[in-house]
């Protein structure tokens, strides 16, 4: 048995400890935001946060993640209460087919938690591990800038509050 902390809750996982986290998230915990794209850590659509840093969950075995704080897109907000990054992606209509978008949201969230006012170059560097084949990159970039603005405004309005979770 392996204990995984996902979106603030501990889960007992009965799986081969070498199982990639992605399969446990989708098959055992029914958290389907992270997607199986290439299975090789090449495309970023399976990304989740481990202690605030983006990891490719398709090639990260659960045994490596015991004791780490995992967050998925589900942990950032839902359809009724989207988090600021999700809200910005909706407002900018940044999805075409949408398959890659959870990975982009994770990369953007990780960036904005550490760098609240990123430059365009920093945004591009942070999103480099994520591939989008529909070509909505310009909207994705706009969404990240919009999310940055929204998160800074919300911190300014509520300085004690914790954003994003």
């Amino acid at each position, binding site marked *: 048995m392996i204990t995984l902390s996902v979106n603030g809750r501990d889960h007992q996982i009965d799986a081969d400890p070498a199982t990639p986290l992605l399969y446990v998230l989708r098959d055992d915990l029914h958290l389907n935001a992270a997607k199986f794209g290439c299975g090789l*850590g090449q495309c970023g659509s399976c990304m989740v946060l481990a202690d605030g840093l983006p990891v490719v969950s398709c090639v*990260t075995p659960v045994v490596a993640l015991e004791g780490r704080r995992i967050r998925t897109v589900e942990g950032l907000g839902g359809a009724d209460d989207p988090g600021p990054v999700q809200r910005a992606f909706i407002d900018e209509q940044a999805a075409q087919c949408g398959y890659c978008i959870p990975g982009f949201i994770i990369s953007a969230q990780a960036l904005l938690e550490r760098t609240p006012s990123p430059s365009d*170059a920093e945004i591009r560097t942070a999103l480099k*591990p994520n591939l989008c084949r529909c070509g909505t990159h310009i909207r994705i970039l706009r969404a990240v800038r919009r999310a940055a603005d929204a998160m800074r405004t919300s911190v300014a309005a509520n300085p004690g509050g914790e954003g994003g979770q």
Partner: protein
Amino acid sequence: MRIPRIVGGAVALAVLGAAGFTAIAWRSGIEPIDPPASASFDPVQVAEGARLAAIGNCMQCHTAPDGKPFAGGYPLKTPFGTIFGTNITPDPETGIGSWSEAAFQRAMAEGVDRAGSHLYPGFPYDHFTKVTERDNRALYAFLMTREPVAADAPPNQLPWPLTFRPLLAGWKLLFLETGEFRPDPSKPEDWNRGAYLVEGLSHCGACHTPRNALGAEEKDKSFGGGESDGWHAPALNQASTAPVPWTKDSLYSYLRTGVSADHAVASGPMAPVVRNLSRVPDTDVQAIATYVADRMGAREAPADPPTPAAEAPRQPEGRAATIYRGACATCHDANGPLQFASPVGLDRATSLAQPDPRNAIQVILHGVETPDAKAAPLMPGFANALTNAQVADLAAYLRTRFTGQPVWDDLEAEVGRARTGDSSE
């Protein structure tokens, strides 16, 4: 009185010594010029200079990360401190726009700048002194026709007394042998061409030869393996530990495409070298491979071939083996379920067989870029996914399983150092 005489003698000696040293250390300035017009250079010579600059990898140390080409500001980390590559665009104030060709020739041959100051040997004039006057003229033509960029490099971060440049005259007395390359008439033409490039402009030994306490290459250990920017620069002589001995063909493939299937993918500081070499004529890359293969010598395959990835032992699986199965086997096992490219077999990967663990650690942490660094990486990095202890365990496991050699020492601290290098970049 005896004592005053000794003191007097010592003072006289010191004065004489200082005078002598000053005479050696003092170099005259060369008159500044107005930047020559681009049109005054022969386009054929400029094109030749471009190829030579690529062979010399000049752009790497003379361009800041994300900076304009050749405008300086690259932090070259040395054991003595950080030296910043200078601006070598033809801007007259901050670059070399006011340098005559004679000043450029002198800098390459003797490591002295236009104004007469000694340059630090981070600028590898111990190699560039071998470059011919003709090639220097072409390099000058190329550099003086670049876009001038006004940019001052940050000041070097060196401790006193290294900031006192006349001291470098002493270093040069000890370690600098000036003079153009002399071909060996007993060797074929492409060998000599390769030797000229490798020992001169390409300055391969600057990273691949170990350095002594004063930062000079140890001539008797030439190509014995050195370091660059947190990476190990593997031995290019008989000390090479590559499980499959390098040949001219495999070296050529590595230098031309960035990949040798039996050895490695060019990574770390070697990646930009290979990218630059992609602009170089095939004959020159062949010549470099010919010469380096000769320096490596014909090495017998090891008597005890590395224990290949045999059956997994039937004992409780360690944590590192589990991580390998979940993170690495997908691509690296011969029958891995998902393979889109054939990675270098781990039983022959040079990084695992080297005496120094840094390259294996760098690759686990940061992955492997494609040779052009534009597409998605060939291998993802695991810096965010794995802890230092997990990376250290995994490196030890890979070393034991795929090379059969003793596990490296001090792995976890080494992983920590590789990460600290990240944050300072």
